[in-house]
């Protein structure tokens, strides 16, 4: 664990409050998000029990319940109700700019990653290809909504199209409890946003007592309330008593899901209290582009998703995933001194004060030519033990690349500029005497196209079992 985060966790526990891990907000917040919470029947991922959603905290959220989640037509009826409003929400994001990119993209906010996985990976996955014609067909809005939900599944790091509240909060705050306890949104908010006069651990305990945020319901509630209502539903023999039971069930479920719904808004408020980091806009732009691409595919009838990706698709995805993860780390560190501080604490980055600069310095390069290599000397704030020859980049200007020179025994670190600030036009980017600087391992990413994965790499070779059809 990073020394900085370890120290913050200790501090959080000692001071009984969450400690900020960032000084800025690294996710995009939509002015009109769709907050979505839901339950499925215990042990049965394919049987949604209830969904609750809305775009404004001041309005009563919409809620749909399935009085018998194992009944296919009741399930479709409820899903169609959700699908219609979900598609209506998404249709607000169709207008485009001159370049043909959607002006804004939708944003789904869910309490935790498990809910996001369930909505995209199960509800989306098993509704997107349903037939809307023929026998026992689904309402046409259900497979269409399934295609959209599938788009929101499996997003790349740095995307804000779906915000899982617990993930977003733990990126920005460190609590003084177990990492697995942070998965409970109510408990996590107890640390980050405790009610007045309450210490965090106490508030977290109070949060634990509230009904689960989904997608699994409370087993005790299942046994004591839900089982009985479902039984009554089966016993009811006329429409009037059925709709009475449905209303009662909706009331019970609202009671269970409302805390999670309210907590999602609280999480958004906490995130909103931080100023947005610089790269949030560019990442959201890329979200807008992928949203545009999906809309195009839906319009052209090409919105297909593979249930099991081919090995080449898997390898390609892994490669993109690695690149995006690195990009996100880099951008967060550039944007946020506290995120960079973790890199300084780990010893990869150098933090200190500039005590000498030599902008005119020239040295002989490998070909014997004299080249301009400005030199800065830094008094390190924290010991920096990387060897001579380590390349670093100016954190405020990652285009400036420097190399650490051999130590002269004074305890000062000397670094010469290799590029980015060694010409008359760029020399102004060099830090001034007395400046506090951070030299980090994060340079500007290279812009060359990554080679396409054309053959199956050894990591993705499949061992064919006795039955090739099993892998389909």
């Amino acid at each position, binding site marked *: 664990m990073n020394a900085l985060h370890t120290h913050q966790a200790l501090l959080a526990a000692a001071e009984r409050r969450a400690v900020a891990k960032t000084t800025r907000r690294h996710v995009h917040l939509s002015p009109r998000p769709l907050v979505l919470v839901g339950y499925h029947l215990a042990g049965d991922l394919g049987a949604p029990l209830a969904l609750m959603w809305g775009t404004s905290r001041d309005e009563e959220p919409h809620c749909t319940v399935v009085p018998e989640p194992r009944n296919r037509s009741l399930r479709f009826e409820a899903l169609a109700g959700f699908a219609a409003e979900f598609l209506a929400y998404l249709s607000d994001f169709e207008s485009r700019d001159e370049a043909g990119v959607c002006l804004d993209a939708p944003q789904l906010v869910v309490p935790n990653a498990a809910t996001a996985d369930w909505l995209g990976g199960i509800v989306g996955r098993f509704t997107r290809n349903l037939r809307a014609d023929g026998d026992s067909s689904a309402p046409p809005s259900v497979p269409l909504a399934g295609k959209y939900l599938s788009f929101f599944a499996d997003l790349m790091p740095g995307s804000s199209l779906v915000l899982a509240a617990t993930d977003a909060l733990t990126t920005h705050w460190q609590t003084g409890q177990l990492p697995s306890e942070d998965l409970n949104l109510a408990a996590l908010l107890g640390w980050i946003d405790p009610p007045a006069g309450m210490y965090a651990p106490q508030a977290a305990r109070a949060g634990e007592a509230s009904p689960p945020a989904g997608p699994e319901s409370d087993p005790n509630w299942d046994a004591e309330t839900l089982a009985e209502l479902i039984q009554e539903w089966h016993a009811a023999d006329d429409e009037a008593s059925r709709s009475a039971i449905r209303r009662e069930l909706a009331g019970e479920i609202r009671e269970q899901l409302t805390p999670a719904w309210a907590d999602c808004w609280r999480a958004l408020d906490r995130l909103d209290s931080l100023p947005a980091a610089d790269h949030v806009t560019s990442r959201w732009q890329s979200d807008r582009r992928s949203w545009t691409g999906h809309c195009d595919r839906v319009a052209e009838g090409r919105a297909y998703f593979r249930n099991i990706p081919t090995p080449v698709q898997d390898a390609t995805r892994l490669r993109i995933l690695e690149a995006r993860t690195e990009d996100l780390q880099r951008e967060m560190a550039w944007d946020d001194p506290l995120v960079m501080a973790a890199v300084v604490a780990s010893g990869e980055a150098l933090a200190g004060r500039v005590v000498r600069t030599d902008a005119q310095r020239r040295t002989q390069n490998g070909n014997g030519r004299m080249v301009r290599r400005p030199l800065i000397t830094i008094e390190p704030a924290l010991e920096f033990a990387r060897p001579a020859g380590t390349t670093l980049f100016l954190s405020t200007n990652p285009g400036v690349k420097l190399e650490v020179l051999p130590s002269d025994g004074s305890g000062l670190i000397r670094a010469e500029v290799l590029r980015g600030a060694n010409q008359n036009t760029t020399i102004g980017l060099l830090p001034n005497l007395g400046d*506090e600087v951070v030299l980090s391992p994060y340079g500007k990413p290279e812009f060359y196209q990554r080679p396409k994965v054309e053959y199956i790499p050894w990591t993705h070779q499949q061992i064919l079992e006795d039955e090739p059809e099993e892998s389909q």
Partner: protein
Amino acid sequence: MTNTSGPLESFRGEFPRQPLNARRVAGALEAPGCQRRTALDAAAVNLDKLGSLISNSPKDRQSPFAITRGNQFEQQVVANGMAEIVSLARRHLGLLIPEVRQHDLSAAALREAYPGVTGTRMNELRERLTRQRAEEMLTDPAQAYNLIRHAMTRLDFGGEIVYLEQDVLAFAVDGRIHVVEIKSYPRIDGRADPRKASATVRQTAVYVLSLQHLMVEIGAPPDVVSTTTMIVLPENLFFRPIAVTIDIDMYVRRLRRQLASVPRAAEILDAIPVGTRLPAHPADGAGADELTAAAAAAREALAPLPPRFTDGCVSCPLFHHCRDEAEFHRSTARLGSAVAGACGNVTDIAAALALAEGRRAPADASEAAVAATLARGAAAARFATGGLT
């Protein structure tokens, strides 16, 4: 009740007993190094009751819907003379089963033939019958049953005999016994929930190991029991069963090593003050005073048993109690294994912070290392937020 009265029984006293099953044996081994859990397991204490008594919270039961669905799936898989299992075993385990001769050793199936046998005696009977059937399988494969349901095997856990009920034992013509486990969580697009899958593997390892012990007891080589086991799961969201074969040899060996270290449970209890024992569990409908008194007595009995608080503890019935304790002692373990590991032998949160801020001088080299690391983290944060001044 067991007939011996060692330190384990005397510690448990009048508190309700809960015989161990495969799931709990596997669960116990997920908390390595926790002497408290080891002692309670070896003493077969009812952990759920103990947990809800001391933290005064209702026990989290399993949802009735999850139970129903699990039962439905199992019924479907074993319906029609286990036709599905047989066909899956032929395909996935490569078993040549020309003729299926199956036998059900469940308590319900035996009750007719052996009226009046209940409780521990029923377990012993089922275990004896399993042993006989297994011997027949090896000595007379042409006549013996080759598919046994609800077989019962034994395992020694800290001196306590644990009876384990297996789903299916399949026997092949080539002379090896395979374990088949039926689970109801789905495999979706070729992938099952990794947490559930690993729990299943650990649980199945408990069965395989107990069968290997049985083989040794009847004088057969233990590798008659194949470590390649077959897990039957529903495919996607439908009830169509599919099978996955997996070689769990590694888990069986790990389990054997872990079990070998369990008998020290009695030693753990030897080390605590004489006469420490759990209270009797208050009867249903007992008053609040009685519950509070019993909870206090239980906490006192647990106190001398050293816990080891880690990330995995959330699934333990005693989680809330141990968490309160860790919090009370201001232990770094409260923050999870990563933080506790980084703090090394400094186990107190206040002491770690004092070291980081230089308010306390490190006592030894390892404390000095912890102090240096934490001070570095703190200094980096200060530099980032306020500059050096």
